[in-house]
């Protein structure tokens, strides 16, 4: 595997956005509210929403912190694109740094501050509560996520994404690291404010961090949310599902298929569950999930030592 040239940033970004739109289309198709309407109308939902938000005036609030607000609104999309930079798709990544796994982790932590500023900058009660909810939720999932990321890295003996993928020839990591895989998917939903982890954007606080932005700001923020899901799904397929490994079909197709499947599962889960409140998530994460992840990591480490000699 070789690092791709610089211009490959553009197709990578396009790919992330394509997956993000796909996720939005799927979300529209699955929405029971529109069940009686034609599939075309439902599938076109991202288009209608985009048109609506492009037409909408950009509104403000009383004495906002405009700089932080705009930065926060743009944050998720930027972070998602930066995450995608290290994800190999079909054996090819834009960049393949030595510390690809940590890079992903650092970016997801960057979201803490960005989403928080999106809530803070609006200078509204509900938005601020949403921003803090994000931090509270992040405190719950971050530590399990770190240990979940450590699993594949230990097994591969490297933090480099290409080597993590290469180490899965033969056996995908998901087979012997199911806990880490589950935690990772949960964390992806968590940092994307999605589904059961949509608490920071909850309807009970008038949309939380989504309560105040309108027009283009809102469009970018919502697109960023789907893009984060897409980047997370791509990462999951590379870290745990063996990336391009698979019979018959070419590697890039396998990568694309796996990413699409993970993404679809993430989108679908939103309809299956209510939002989990952060206090409950916190208890679950620290008392149950964290020990489980550590046990998983122990198993992985022992196997890695035994097998690796």
């Amino acid at each position, binding site marked *: 595997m070789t690092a791709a040239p610089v211009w490959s940033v553009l197709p990578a970004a396009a790919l992330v956005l394509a997956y993000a739109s796909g996720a939005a289309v799927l979300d529209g198709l699955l929405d029971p509210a529109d069940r009686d309407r034609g599939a075309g109308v439902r599938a076109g939902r991202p288009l209608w929403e985009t048109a609506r938000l492009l037409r909408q005036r950009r509104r403000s609030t009383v004495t906002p912190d405009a700089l*932080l607000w705009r930065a926060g609104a743009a944050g998720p999309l930027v972070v998602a694109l930066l995450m995608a930079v290290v994800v190999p798709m079909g054996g090819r990544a834009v960049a393949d740094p030595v*510390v690809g796994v*940590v890079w992903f982790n650092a970016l997801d932590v960057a979201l803490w*501050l960005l989403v928080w*500023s999106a809530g803070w900058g609006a200078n509204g009660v509900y938005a601020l509560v949403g921003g*803090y909810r994000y*931090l509270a939720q992040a405190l719950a999932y971050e530590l399990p996520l770190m240990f979940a990321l450590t699993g594949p890295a230990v097994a591969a003996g490297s933090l480099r994404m290409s080597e993590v993928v290469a180490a899965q020839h033969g056996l995908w990591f998901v087979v012997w690291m199911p806990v880490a895989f589950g935690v990772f998917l949960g964390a992806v939903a968590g940092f994307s404010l999605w589904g059961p982890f949509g608490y920071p954007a909850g309807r009970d606080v008038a949309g939380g961090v989504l309560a105040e932005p309108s027009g283009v700001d809102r469009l970018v923020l919502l697109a960023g949310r789907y893009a984060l899901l897409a980047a997370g799904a791509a990462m999951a397929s590379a870290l745990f599902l063996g990336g391009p490994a698979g019979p018959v079909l070419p590697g890039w197709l396998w990568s694309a298929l796996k990413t699409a499947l993970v993404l679809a599962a993430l989108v679908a889960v939103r309809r299956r569950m209510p939002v989990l409140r952060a*206090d409950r998530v916190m208890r679950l994460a620290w008392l149950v999930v964290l020990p489980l992840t550590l046990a998983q990591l122990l198993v992985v480490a022992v196997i890695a030592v035994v097998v690796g000699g």
Partner: protein
Amino acid sequence: MRVTAFVLLALLAVAGGVAVFVVNSMARATIALAVSFVAAGAAILLVDAAYLGVITILMMLMEMGIMAIFMIMFMMNPGGLMPMSMMHNKRGALVVSIVVFLLLAGGALGTPWPQRRGTPPSDPTLALGEAIMGGKMLVMMTVSAVLFATIVSAMVLATGRGRYDGEPSARPADDA
């Protein structure tokens, strides 16, 4: 190329650091500090210490996130609606820090540094990992003990009531 990048990042880092004490909003101060750290971490990336650079960024962003919580908790007027000046002894501090800067910078430029010995390993992260698990194991074990002691003592200091004599409140430890 590398020099230009470094200069830009260095300027950004210092500008962020200065901004911390200049802007009139705690939120912006926190973000400015985060920007300063990210720039410093990126500068470290330039010297092939990939792991150190990224881990610096990671840790510092996390700390700033935590700091945002405390900032609102402790500061009246966190929104910075009112111009904030909470200086005392500004002049003295300014003089001291300028003197320190001149001394340090002069020292850095003036000292006859020894010749560089050896070349960076092909994978500095690997070297670091082997050092931690090999020769420097003791250091890391000390660090981990200290960290554990910190968690415990911070909790003891910060919580007014004991663990079992109140309603069970699911508050997180204040550092991860």
